[in-house]
């Protein structure tokens, strides 16, 4: 019990952010028309590419060859997620736009 409470106290800021973000995510999405489901999924997909920041941090303090290689791979894959995600989403949305 003490452990759990200690854990909570130690990470209270993060827990706070998590809870607020959950509600925010639900609120932001809830009235989306069906035609935007695919672009929205794709856009959200690009946003979780934020994992690349973790990859960069890992790479930044990597000191062994092993962690260098894995970190390098992580940065490449993370970038793929970010760049590919945003570009694909833009391509989808571009098509909707030229109609106007």
């Amino acid at each position, binding site marked *: 019990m003490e452990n759990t409470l200690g*854990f909570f106290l130690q990470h209270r800021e*993060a827990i706070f*952010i*998590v809870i607020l*973000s*959950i*509600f*925010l*995510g*639900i609120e*932001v*999405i*809830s009235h*989306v*028309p*069906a*035609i*935007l*489901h*695919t672009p*929205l*999924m794709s*856009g*959200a*997909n*690009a*946003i*979780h*590419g*934020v*994992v*690349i*920041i*973790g*990859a*960069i*941090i890992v*790479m*930044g303090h*990597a000191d062994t060859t092993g*962690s260098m290689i894995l*970190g390098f791979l*992580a*940065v*490449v*894959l*993370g*970038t793929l*997620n970010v*760049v*590919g995600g*945003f*570009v*694909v*989403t*833009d391509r989808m949305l571009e*098509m*909707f*736009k030229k*109609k106007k």
Partner: protein
Amino acid sequence: MDQLSQINNGISVLEIIYVIASVLFILGLKMLSHPLTARRGNILAAFGMLFAIIATILFHTKDGKPIGNIPWILIAIAIGTVIGWVIAKKVKMTAMPQLVSFFNGMGGAAAALISMIEFPNVSPELIAEQGIANGHVLAILLGLMIGTVSWAGSMIAYGKLDGWIGDMRIKAMKYINLTILFVLIGFIVFIMTRDVQTTSELTPLIYIMFAVAVIYGVLFVMPIGGADMPVVISLLNSFTGVAAAMGGFLYNNQAMLTGGILVGSAGTILTVLMCRAMNRSLLNVIVGVFGGGGSANVTVDGSVKEISLTDAAVLLSYSKKVVIVPGYGLAVAQAQHICHELDKLLEEKGVEVKYAIHPVAGRMPGHMNVLLAEADVPYEQLIESDEINPDLPNTDVLIVIGANDVVNPAAEDDPSSPIYGMPIIKARDAKNIIVMKRGMGKGYAAIENMLFFNDKTRMLFGDAKSTLQNLVNEVKSL
């Protein structure tokens, strides 16, 4: 005061930029959910990401200085950018869903790699102080598990949508999957209850856990097929979001935390919305057997009647109202442009032409809208199924092009059918129905479609593109 003296400019700038990035993510996502602002929203979020990346490289050390290995980081980013850009620009619009799945998998893999690198690096001081059962280790293990499952699952989903992985269904699958899930959780509990001084002595366990998570990811997606695929991709998308958020815990990084959790929760809601569009529950999708053999006991009475191109052209040209129901078959044949040509031709003859778009037409909700938009079909002609259904009895001809399950009356008639209850386009209400199909094969959900045997239905067999081309020529020569 002590704390204040530690604050320096680099760190402050970094944290401010993270706040800005988080705001841009939120705004971007919000704008993405409205048709008019969607494109700007996407670009906004991309800028948020760019700022966060640059700031991380420049300031992310304890004293706010640039981090190490910058040349290597830039090379890695350059490689990822070029590959990602080229793939994203080159891929055909029909292959969009599997591409989203592919990129999603990359994010999951990156999250898993981070955990693998960080696990042996957990500081012995932290373990001495709090034991191995601390938040840091938990975040690493969860990041590894969720990231890996998301990666493996996304790759399978990618393969399935691309058509080189088939469905695999074993009755006991859900028990097997449940068991593996418990094994994974068991691993986490086991690792976190060890009495060790450093995590490096447990590192081999991490690799075994990674392997088990790969197996789980594969088996999790393997039995799911048919129209449920986009739901799974959306679900895996939110998994990756959570995995990224674990990285946020790990580094106490607010941008990763907000970005990850935001996608995690928005992705979950999106998944639920998609399920609702198909009148299915999420649990049903995950453990259900959609697209399985279906009801084998359907007795087919009546026979399939064909129509000649000329007859079809005459029928269409002298109608008042025509409704086109496009499906994935239209998309794979790349026939959306020629289809639009047919509709323009008919409109010139005074025929009113509309498109009936089912929420899950194509391979993802909204996929068909993207494809038709690509072919310059105006927005106003695309009508959602709920709206067009009451109008169908007044429709002279309804043309089904490469669609199947979304017009299958079994969804209304046959409680034993796996698609029973799914909202459909009530094609049989129309006065005449023309179905364009490659052959008598079953749809993506592998269910017999009684619409094809309806008295009002005429079949036009052949590849959608060439059939439409021939039909256009016939209409022109009338």
